[in-house]
C-alpha cells in the first residue's frame, strides 16, 4: 500500500496577499504549504522542515533576497526544485531573461514564473518538477 503522502511546498514572498492566495490554491490542490514572508523566516522553516519544492519571490526586502534563498535551498539539498517568481518585468520594465540553460544554472532556479502568476502555469511547473523528481 502506498501511503498518501502530501508533498510540502515552501512559499517565500513578502506580499501577504500573494502568499495567502497561493496557499489557498495549493492546499486546494492537495499540497501542504509552509509560508514565509521573508528570507530569514524561510531559512528558519528550511532548518526545521522537509520540503519538496519551493516557490521563491525574487525581490523580497533585500533586492537579491530571492537569489540568496534559492542558493541556500540548493546548498541544503540540490534536488529540491525551486520556482523563482519575479515581478521584475512588470515592475521595472526590465527584461529578466533566463531563457538559456546557462542563465538558469546561474540563478540556481529550476523555473522562472512572471508575476502576475497564472495559477495553471504554476501548477504545470510544479507537476513537471515534482514529476521529474519522483
Amino acid at each position, binding site marked *: 500500500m502506498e501511503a498518501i503522502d502530501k508533498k510540502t511546498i515552501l512559499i517565500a514572498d*513578502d*506580499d*501577504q*496577499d*500573494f502568499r*495567502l*492566495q497561493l496557499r*489557498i*490554491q495549493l492546499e*486546494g490542490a492537495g499540497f501542504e504549504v509552509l509560508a514565509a*514572508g*521573508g528570507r*530569514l523566516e524561510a531559512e528558519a522553516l528550511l532548518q526545521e522542515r522537509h520540503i519538496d519544492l519551493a516557490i521563491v519571490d525574487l525581490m523580497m*526586502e533585500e533586492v537579491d533576497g530571492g537569489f540568496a534563498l534559492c542558493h541556500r535551498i540548493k546548498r541544503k539539498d540540490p534536488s529540491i526544485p525551486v520556482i523563482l517568481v519575479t515581478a521584475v518585468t512588470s*515592475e521595472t520594465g526590465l527584461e529578466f531573461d533566463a531563457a538559456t540553460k546557462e542563465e538558469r544554472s546561474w540563478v540556481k532556479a529550476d523555473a522562472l514564473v512572471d508575476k*502576475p502568476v497564472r495559477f495553471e502555469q504554476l501548477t504545470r511547473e510544479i507537476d513537471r518538477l515534482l514529476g521529474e523528481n519522483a
Partner: protein
Amino acid sequence: MMDPLHILVVDDEAGMRQGMVRALRDFHVRLPDVEGETGFVTQVAETGEQALEMIERQTPDILLLDHKLPGISGLDVLDHITQREDKMVTVMVTAYASLDTAVTAIKRGAYDFLAKPFTPEELRAVVTKAGGSLILARHARQLAEDKKRIRFQFISVLAHELKSPLSAIEGYLQLLRDPSVRDDDATCSHVVERCVVRSVGMRKMIRDLLDLTALESGQKVREVQDLDLETIARAAVENVAAEAAERGIDIEIDIATLVPLRGDPWEIQTLLNNLVSNAVKYNRDGGRVALHVSRDDGKVTVQVADTGIGMTAEETARLFSDFARIKNEKTRDILGSGLGLSTVRKVCALYGGDVTVESEPGVGSTFTAVLNVPPV
C-alpha cells in the same frame, strides 16, 4: 570644457567665406553657465542647396546664413530648417543694411542678423550672443525634458501602486468563485477581510494623491485665517482613535495654551493628520504617541513622537520623496501610499518651514514640522 560649437557659414562669395572662417579661427569665448572657454569649428557652404545637404548630415549649432545666394535664397533655407526638430541658432547675413530682410528673417525663426559690411569683432560679437542663446535654449529644453521624465515616472509608479491592491482583490474574488473556498468559513472570512483591507488602503492612497495634487496644482483656493490648532490636533487624533484603541496605543496631546497660527485649515489639518496617522501606523502595539505643539520666535513647531519601529539614517534620508516607502521586515505588512510625508513637506514649504525626523531603529521616530508665522 564644452566641445567646440559647430558653425556653418553659407555664402557664395569666396572672400567672404574665407574672411569669416579666419575671424572665427582660434576664437574662444566664455558662455553663460559653461565651464571654461568654448571654441568653434567652422565649415562652409557655397549655396543654400549645399548648406541643406550639410545640415542633413550634421546639424551645426550656429548657422551664419547669407541672404542672397545663387540658387535658393537664405530665407528659403531658413524655412527648411525651422521645420526641423533639432534646434540650431541662425544668424542671417544681409548684403546691405536692409531692415526689411532682417525683420522677415527673424519672423521666420532667425535669431539675429548681421549687416554687411561687418568687422571681425562684429562677427565675433554676434556669434558670442548666438552661442549664449544656444546654451540657454539647451538648458531650457533639458529642464522641460527632466520635468516630463519625472512626471512619467510619477505616473508609472502611481499606476503600479494602484494596480497592486486591485490585483490582490481580483485574485481573492477569483478564489471566491470556487465553491470549496466559499464553503470554508475560516478561509472565506480571511479572504473577505483582506479584500476590505486592500480596498481601504487603495481609497486612502487615492485620498493622499488628491491631497498632493491639490497642493501642487495651485488650483485650490487657499483660505488663510486664524486657526485653532487644538481643534485641528484633536481632529487628527480622533481620525486614528479607533486603530490606536484597537492596538492599545496611547496618544497624548500637549498644546501650549493659545498657539495662534494663521493658515489654511485644510493644509494644517492634512499636515497633522499625516504625522499622527504615521505615528500610529508605524508604532508597536501598546506604544505611545506624543503630539506637542508650541510657539516661539514667530515659529510654530509641531512635534510628533512615536515609540515605533524607527528607521536607520539611510532610510530617513529618502523618506520625504514621493512614493518613498521603507521596505523591510517590520514594514512588510503595513500598507501606505508613500505620499503622506511628501505632502507634509510640501505643506511646510508653503509656510516657509520644513519637516525633519530623528529616529532610532526599534526605539521610535520624532517628526518635527516647523512653520513660520508672520508677526501678528
